[in-house]
């Protein structure tokens, strides 16, 4: 592989990262080639010593998406970062994507519980016969209000957990990139 081929393949593999960032990365390799040539090496030798450009591109992309997710937090960016890191290997797919999916599912289930609890009074109003509350000696309205309040508290707690969870995922992703960096 000569310089032109290497640069073209790297350029293609870096699709998706912004122009400025890409230009910087390409510049670095351009510089590497020109110094190597000055020192009397051939383009083929230099390309070979640089290593596999597909895995280079993957790690450059993963680093970039994580930096962006840190700077501009959002579900979309986090998700992109997760996919980019997962793309670095099966090991990472198991250690990054699967914990994320399980955690998101658990959170989702907890949100449903909270919403249903909050909705208990309304459910009873709309479908008085279909909802049975086993309240024993406690007045029904108290149990219903209890559900409503507990649901509200649960929702607030969940919002805090979601925030913390978001930070945790970011830290987890960064740790993963540290482990696999340079690949």
């Amino acid at each position: 592989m000569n310089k032109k081929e290497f640069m073209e393949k790297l350029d293609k593999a870096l699709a998706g990262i912004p122009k400025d960032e890409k230009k910087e990365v390409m510049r670095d390799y351009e510089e590497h080639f020109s110094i190597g040539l000055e020192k009397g090496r051939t383009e083929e030798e230099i390309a070979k010593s640089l290593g596999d450009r597909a895995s280079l591109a993957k790690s450059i992309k993963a680093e970039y998406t994580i930096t962006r997710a840190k700077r501009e937090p959002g579900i979309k960016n986090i998700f992109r970062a997760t996919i980019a890191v997962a793309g670095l290997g099966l090991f990472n797919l198991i250690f990054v994507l699967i914990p994320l999916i399980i955690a998101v599912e658990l959170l989702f289930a907890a949100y449903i519980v909270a919403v249903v609890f909050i909705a208990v009074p309304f459910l009873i109003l709309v479908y008085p016969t279909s909802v049975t509350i086993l309240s024993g000696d406690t007045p029904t309205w108290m149990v219903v209000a209890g559900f409503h309040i507990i649901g509200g508290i649960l929702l607030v707690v969940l919002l805090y957990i979601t925030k913390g969870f978001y930070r945790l995922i970011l830290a987890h992703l960064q740790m993963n990139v540290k482990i696999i960096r340079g690949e």
Partner: protein
Amino acid sequence: MNIQIKKGVIEVCVFAILSKKDCYGYELAETISKHVKISEGTIYPLLRRLTKEGYFTTYLRESSEGPPRKYYKMSKQGIEYKKSLSKDWNDLTKGVNELIEECEKDE
């Protein structure tokens, strides 16, 4: 060499070299290659990350031949980090060497 080990080693090497003088990417790759077998391309993502994290700053300097070269210079934060990294590395290699020696003695 195991790829995970190598990645950590390259980082240690980069900090060691840059604590002595400012270097451009090619120079770093060349110096490390003399001692450790590496894929030279991996040095650039590493340098980008460490620069973004504030350990290095960069500047361009014209060369007598060819395009200007991007030099990497260690920041204050980088110097501090280098100290702890070198210590970690020395502790690690000392410990592992001791262990290997002990095991070989037992044979």
